[in-house]
């Protein structure tokens, strides 16, 4: 069981390579995932695809917060997405996929199912 799970955690980068409050894109089994580190040290992973423009760009948005909830703003049309849930705060009907993410021995990993 554990062995099988291991196979599904994919390495992204070293935790120290993540700049606080900025994202990076990672290619996980052919799919682009945006990985963010917030100021409190937490790590979040979302689909990199901006649902409004169809461009693979969310990792390049500005990280901040809305009423205390950490967000990333799409760099194309500026809608804000909640990092923890992927919900678009400007249009709550729109949600981008989120991925489980963890830091093991200083390495960031994303769960690919």
């Amino acid at each position, binding site marked *: 069981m554990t062995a099988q799970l291991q196979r599904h955690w994919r390495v*992204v980068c070293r935790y120290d390579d993540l*700049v606080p409050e900025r994202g990076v894109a990672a290619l996980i089994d052919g799919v682009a995932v945006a990985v963010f580190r917030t100021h409190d040290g937490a790590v979040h992973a979302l689909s990199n695809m901006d649902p409004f423009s*169809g*461009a*693979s*760009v969310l990792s390049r948005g*500005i*990280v*901040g*917060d809305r009423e205390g909830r950490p967000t990333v703003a799409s760099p194309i049309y500026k809608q804000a997405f909640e990092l923890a849930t992927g919900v678009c705060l400007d249009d709550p009907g729109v949600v981008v996929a989120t991925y489980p993410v963890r830091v093991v021995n200083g390495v960031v990993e994303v769960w690919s199912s």
Partner: protein
Amino acid sequence: MRTVVVAGHGMVGHRLVEALIGRDLQRQWRIVVLAEEVRPAYDRVALSSYVDSWDADALTLPAVLDDRVELRLGDPCVRIDRRKRTVRTASGRRVVYDALVLATGSAPFVPPVPGHDLPGCYVYRTPEDLDAIRVAAQRAMQTTAAGRRSGVVVGGGLLGLEAAHALRQLGLSPHVVEIAPRLMPMQVDEGGGALLRRFVEGLGVRVYCGRATQAIEPDRGRMLVRLSDGTELDTDVVVFSAGVRPRDQLARDAGLSVGERGGVLVDAGCHTSDADIWAIGECAAVEGRCYGLVAPGYAMAEVVADRLLGGHATFPGADTSTKLKLLGIDVASFGDAHATAEGALEVIHNDPVAGRYAKLVVSDDARTLLGGVLVGDAEAYGTLRALVGAVLPADPGALISPSGGELDAGALPAGAQVCSCHAVTVETIGTAVRDGATTVPALKACTKAGTGCGSCVPMLKKLLAAQGVEQSKALCEHFTHSRAELFEVVAATRIRTFSELVAKHGTGRGCDICKPAVASILASLSGVLSPGSHILDGEQATLQDTNDHFLANLQRNGTYSVVPRVPGGEITPQKLIVLGEVARDFGLYTKITGGQRIDLFGARVEQLPAIWRRLVDAGFESGHAYGKALRTVKSCVGTDWCRYGVQDSVGMAIALELRYRGLRAPHKLKSAVSGCARECAEARSKDFGVIATENGWNLYVCGNGGFRPRHADLLVSDVDTETLVRTIDRFLMFYVRTADRLQRTAPWLEELEGGLDHLRDVIVHDSLGICAELDVAMAAHVAGYADEWRGVLEDPAKLARFTSFVNAPGVPDPTIEFVEERGQPTPAHRRPGQPVLIAGPTLTVVP
């Protein structure tokens, strides 16, 4: 559809067209406008500004573009046949009307003194009149010795003083002759007139009051003007501005009733004695009275528009209040300025030393304001005029004392007129505010208030505040400060990181609004606060919008475009070849921009460093197309090549572009330099535009293309290069310091209290005492400039960010696909869940 014929396309005729088209939602009327003048309606009130630019187009009023309007220029109406309901034009055309509106304005009155028709005698009403005066002044430059060149203005009213100013600008010393005992007798009283005269004389205008012009005689190529007291004035030019007479001849010929003192007689509904004919504007005598101001004319136009659509509006009577700046002197008069009401009392504050005269006329119990006169300082005009007829909120003396009881806008009665140009009341503003117009620009758009002379703009702000609309300047949920306030905070505290700023002065962690705004402020101040820094240093990098983050412009498919700087639009063939080679080698779509440079599209993040390596090696640098920063300074070829050029526009454009490159601002900045008045570089559509003159340069500011086009305003004229550059330095730094986030220069100026005059006071006359600071800030910027792309290429840490995927740095983003259009790659249309759209005649789908 019925036809309304409008005779005259002046300010009022034009207003009728606007009002009728705007309200005739059922398309009941088509409009035929017969205009005597060859140019469409223009802002006659601003005629004197023509002397600054000699650009008549700048006066043109916004056209009404509608298929229901037919405008016939240069073809006046010459006859009305009331029985057949037709009019005939000078070209012989007949037009049948269902309704006819006379808006023929008035003609300058020329007193029949001997010699009034000599060559060298002019009136002051159209651009053509001014052109003729200009030619005469230029002739005087050739024929009359310096020091003796002069012009006589007959009439010392508002227009006369404007004409005197124009003569002065044309190099003649002006003399003003006024039959009344004081200047502007209609508007000001004796005390105000005395101060006004002192001011005017201080400006080199000779004033002769209480004297009539008796004769004008030719005198060895010049003229001699004899006054009733025996004074003789040598002169090159005579300008008559002794009042106007309504142009009512058409109506007289058609047998319509006219007023006792002229003017087409109309009732309060603007009907003439013929039910199908109306008259509006200066040609109309409403219940016998003619009005020589534009606001009452506008009110008449509104009445007729309403009535043509079946309404019953009546002329509300006119407010003949005026506020103007004459030769730089504030003069205002409102309500019963001459205290004609029974028992009226006058409260006067006269300070000849400070150059300030104020009089309030109040009712016999000193409680109700009836009118007043202000000379030298008309700051209080907006509030005072709106208070006419209302119970005064304070002791009248206190209201006009210099320490001034600041009036509470909330105390104004609902019916008080805020904007007299467009007759907008406190109540109308209140309704608009409740309907969601909560900013000055929004109020301007929906009520027209503030779009005439602009003197009520400060009042609009006060009303907004009084309505409890907190003009929230808060940048976003993280800062309660406006951008300008944050700028001051950063400048004063020298805080250099966002984290520290938000911790000490804000809340939360910031967002896509405040982070780039702060990044921009830090960059604008970097010359002073942190010389040698780069916008991608440390934490600052995380604040940047993706464009600034990757120093390129994000396009809709996630790729970027690259724009190297091409100063002034001048480029060598060799560099052009490099651009072509880079585009070819990286498969980039290529397009020439409107700013005279070349934009290369379709670069992936990880390609940017390699592209820029090639460009930097070839001598290119960042063009900052990605930044809220100076973009380009366009130029025409100027004296280098053009046979009309009077200055080196290319050299100037390059110098300006190199000086201001990299300057971060609240929004992008565009500029242009034209080598002569033909203006091939379109400088007047730019944030700052320079146009060469025979003697130097004219500087225009706050123009805008884009969504809301605006012609730039003339800030200074005929200045030398040093003054030009210094003025632009200060203009830019003042804008950078005080504008809102993403506010371009045009709306910034519109919101700036005091407008262009204030701007000029601040940066030319240093009225706030900040010019030295502005100069230091710009000097620091210029000294600290470094190419941002070179900075990235030289720093491995910065370069490391330019990867597609952290875990697969060499792999291109698989979602980026191109199709070929017209021989170049363009993004394949992709929307989530949709296949690649196949379109175009010669299309290859790139796998």
